[in-house]
């Protein structure tokens, strides 16, 4: 049931894409990402020409243009890249391990749980709940991490019945997602959140209120997880291929699966602290990368790259195409939902009852 060229099921019968294809696709996506990052930095109320942008980014210029680029626009671009990389990589790992493209953190409620914990930590009002008093002391990225891990374990525990049948993971995940979404609404409606956008914007996922002060800690957590992933790379490749063969080759299968799942859930959760639960990036980015690169399963690095490109283009569209800046989550939904429908409609054999 590893997603391959036949949609939700089966290894690809088509020839796998070679290294050349993967490098080529990565270059194309990389170029698109750079173009949209530069466009986001250069256009807006004040247009800064591209050479000015490059000089400002390199720190060679100190004029007003440079201030606009580095202080006002760069945080959005950095936020988009962090969120896209985290969600894309996380989605690729969970989709590979659970052998279910729908088992991505944004569909089964991991990012929803992370965002509930994040808004609890952000809330300054103490009259909300008794648990809130100690969550409020936590740094937001750590709270999001805890919330995501709680939601993820909840889904896995509730969906477990002699294995994780894809349809049960999806149904339980949708329920958990709805529950945490409602909990987030509750917190947002009843806590004083200075500077935080309206509940509508936060629940959709937005870079409008991106908070630069947490970039460093989020980037640190992501770096630690990425190092862990590099160390676990062989385990992931083998688990993705065949659990029994991985076991035969001396890999501790349950421990490997657990560590990889924690890493993936952690990635998705911690980037939620930056922009809220941005929908459909963790689901769609690995699937787009899989279709373009024709890899054996959803590629982790490819998913991260496509995730970043998806966030950069979506945020550019959200900010520049509409009269007022929309939350980026609206656009990622418009990109991700057709991918989901396409995937569901082209799968002809059943993967779950």
């Amino acid at each position, binding site marked *: 049931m590893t997603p391959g060229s036949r949609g939700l099921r089966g290894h690809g019968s088509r020839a796998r894409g070679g290294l050349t294809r993967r490098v080529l696709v990565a270059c194309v996506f990389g170029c698109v990402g750079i173009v949209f990052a530069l466009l986001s930095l250069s256009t807006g109320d004040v247009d800064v020409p591209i050479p000015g942008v490059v000089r400002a980014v390199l720190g060679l210029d100190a004029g007003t243009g440079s201030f606009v680029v580095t202080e006002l626009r760069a945080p959005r671009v950095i936020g988009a890249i962090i969120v896209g990389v985290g969600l894309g990589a996380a989605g690729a790992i969970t989709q590979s391990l659970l052998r279910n493209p729908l088992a991505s953190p944004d569909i089964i409620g991991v990012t929803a749980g992370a965002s509930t914990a994040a808004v609890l930590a952000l809330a300054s009002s103490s009259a909300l709940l008794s648990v809130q008093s100690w969550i409020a002391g936590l740094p937001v990225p750590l709270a999001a991490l805890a919330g995501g891990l709680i939601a993820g374990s909840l889904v896995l525990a509730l969906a477990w019945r002699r294995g994780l049948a894809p349809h049960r993971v*999806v149904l339980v995940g949708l329920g958990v997602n709805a529950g945490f979404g409602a909990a987030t609404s509750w917190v947002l409606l009843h806590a004083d959140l200075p500077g935080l956008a309206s509940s509508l914007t936060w629940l959709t996922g937005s870079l409008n209120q991106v908070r630069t002060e947490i970039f460093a800690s989020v980037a640190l957590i992501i770096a630690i997880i990425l190092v862990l992933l590099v160390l676990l790379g062989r385990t992931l490749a083998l688990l993705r291929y065949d659990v029994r063969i991985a076991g035969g080759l001396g890999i501790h299968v349950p421990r490997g699966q657990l560590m990889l799942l924690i890493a993936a859930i952690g990635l998705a959760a911690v980037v939620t602290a930056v922009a809220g639960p941005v929908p459909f990036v963790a689901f769609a980015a690995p699937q787009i990368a899989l279709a373009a690169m024709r890899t054996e399963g959803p590629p982790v690095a490819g998913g991260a790259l496509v995730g970043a490109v998806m966030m950069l283009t979506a945020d550019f569209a959200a900010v520049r195409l509409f009269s007022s800046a929309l939350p980026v989550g609206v656009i990622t*939904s418009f990109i991700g*939902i057709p991918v989901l429908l396409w995937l569901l409609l082209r799968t002809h054999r059943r993967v779950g*009852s």
Partner: protein
Amino acid sequence: MTIPSGTPATAPGTATRRHRRLRLTLITATAAVAVMLSAAASVAFGSQPMPLSQVLTVLRDPAAAGSEAVAVVWGLRIPRTIVGLIAGAALGVAGALAQVHTRNPLADPGLLGVTSGAGFAVIAGMAFLGLNAPLQYVWCALVGAALSGALVLLIAGRIRAFGPITTIVLTGAITSALLGAASTAIVLTHEEIMRSFQGWSTGALVNRQLDLLPAIAPLLAAGIVLTLVNLPAWPGLALGDELAAGLGRNVAADRTIGISAIAVLAAAATAITGPLAFIGLLSPHVARRLMPDAPIAAVLLTAPIGAVLLLAADVLGRVVVTHGELPVGVATALIGAPVFVVIARAVTR
């Protein structure tokens, strides 16, 4: 599939029949008492605490009570109680019909995308057609509910990856996500809608104008008529399309009537409360627990059960929170999501 079709084919003995009639009377009486109690609670408790004696004074002798108390009770609490009773009953029956017609114990107008279709259509109508009269909202809601329901069924019919239960819920969730994103985009780019629809997207009973009630009355009437016309079809539908056709039912006609009833009832409820999920999911399950051997009575019983559940959730939302109140849409989702997970686990055994 857990929808019981329990009516025995052979005539039951007189003793069993008397037993069942007694049980029916008892449950009907209990339902009536529960509806009255929840309505009384909805009038008595509020986010602004008011002694019970003062509430009673307002009801008995408005002149003796302060004008502020009269405004709270007559201006806020009684209208939202009426809205809650009507919307809850409509959603309960719509949920029961959805579960009968899709033979899916997880079906619910909210989960099927019908209510988000109604909500999206109202927002789009306000933004692009400049609608502002209650009657126009209601028609918009109806068209949106019907179209999104049809879209969900159409897409679900073409998905082979999962079994029918998962497919319908998943398709509904996808459609709701898409319509939700589109609604968010419209609301955030049209400030005038942002103001009038504050809180509407989460579903609420507060600040609902009763002037919408005359506008939805024809829809409610149509919903009741369609439900009653559809009534003889249910035992057959519970057995599956082939067997129902074998019993001499016109399955296509039965299905069209039933789905129209769902759309009409869900649109009416959504027009006055905003999108609400889970009431339609929970009510039929409670009803079937109470009446396991009478499927038709169980569907009809979802009307009082839906009303009680919605009012109870609304009262909880006012009482539990220390300051302000919880929109009923958040309260129903907080209660409904765990129950959804429990039912989902049971049906995917």
